[in-house]
């Protein structure tokens, strides 16, 4: 049993747990969160499984597929709990796909996917940890920091 978090429970919303320690702010940055939404963040929370982890609780927000896909790139270990009326109604791990399509732009300015053609950028995941993607068009590899910068 993991030690409980000293931040308040939420009534309705989403808990993003098991974020690698130090990545919470990066995760938060890629989520679309409106100004009147309450967010609680736990940073360097002790975890049996991970040593330390980050946790984010967002009031009255349910994640879209594209947001889940982006989280999977930054925090492949993350688990998502959907809270309704203080109860967890659904809990799942994010899923790092084999191919990343349309979420990340290729950092190579000479890549055909940056030339206004009607295609989505497409990458093969060649390593999950540390994250490395390879563009199927120009074959360039992108590191985790490249990916985070282009999300």
């Amino acid at each position, binding site marked *: 049993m993991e030690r409980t978090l000293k931040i308040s429970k939420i009534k309705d919303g989403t808990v993003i747990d098991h974020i690698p320690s130090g990545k919470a702010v990066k995760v938060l940055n890629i989520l679309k969160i409106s100004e009147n939404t309450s967010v609680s963040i736990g940073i360097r929370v002790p975890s049996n499984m991970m040593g330390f982890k980050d946790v984010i609780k967002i009031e009255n927000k349910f994640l879209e597929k594209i947001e889940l896909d982006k989280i999977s790139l930054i925090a492949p270990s993350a688990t998502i709990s959907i809270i309704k009326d203080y109860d967890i109604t659904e809990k799942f791990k994010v899923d790092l796909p084999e191919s990343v399509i349309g979420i990340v732009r290729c950092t190579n300015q*000479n890549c*055909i996917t940056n030339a206004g053609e*009607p*295609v989505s950028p497409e990458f093969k995941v060649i390593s999950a940890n540390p994250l490395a993607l390879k563009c199927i*068009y120009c*074959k*360039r590899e992108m590191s985790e920091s490249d990916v985070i910068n282009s999300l």
Partner: protein
Amino acid sequence: MLKNKSLISIADLEDDDINAIFEKADYISGHMDEVLRTSPMKSKILATLFYEPSTRTRLSFEASMERLGGSVISMADSKTSSFAKGETLADTIRIVESYSDIIVIRHPLEGASLLASKFSSKPIINAGDGSGEHPTQTLIDLYTIRNETGGIDDREITIVGDLKYGRTVHSLILALSRYNVKINLVSPPSLALPNYVYNGIKDKLNIETYNNLDDVISGTDVLYVTRIQKERFVDKNEYYKLIGSYKITLNEVNKMKNGSIIMHPLPRVDEIDPAVDYTKNAKYFRQAANGIPVRMSLISIILGD
């Protein structure tokens, strides 16, 4: 099986595909009169879309199709063509595929030919798309080594010059990793093979790096010379100093063993002394000539004669 397939990267080819292309190229070379008479690609149309100039490559594809009895349509200078003016490559391909049976594309942007293949039901041949993949050039290089030295396995291949920017060299080295060869890389440190290429092949190939050609020239079966581009040097004196130490002259040729060959993807500038052209080692013009049977073979295998 290559029938109706695009050729985007040399990695798309199985070893058997490469052998089939070479065997058919041998047949075509040996039976050119018969091929010209029977016109196996009669009624087929090849389109060339060159978004950057490479006259030799375009002429070689067009001559190959003409010799097979097919026809060629060609985009005019990409700077004046309405195709180039704001239209996406995807749209151009959708139109040109309805005019032709096979499309040869050269484009400055990386991955352009893969993109083209996604918008075309007709096969695409990549004739260079910025990424360094130029698979027909690589096939011609391999074919030349095979035919001029009697095989590819067990050869000692020395690649000299610009190994950093000379991207056809990267493609050749990757392709050579299919064979049992020894590769010597000779270049100034500033033009050495990039790590990302080296790391990809160092476990598959017997490959070593040298600073001096003299260290390896006597054991070399194939001396592959690449162009050192003057434009890469801010200080032109640096260029002339480098060219001086890597230039192939009769002095180098005299150190080479019997039956060894010299190759160069051409155009050659200062890297090979013209006096070398008349030695029996010089095979770079043969290499260029091999472009015809190899491309004829590839086109007929893809279009299935």
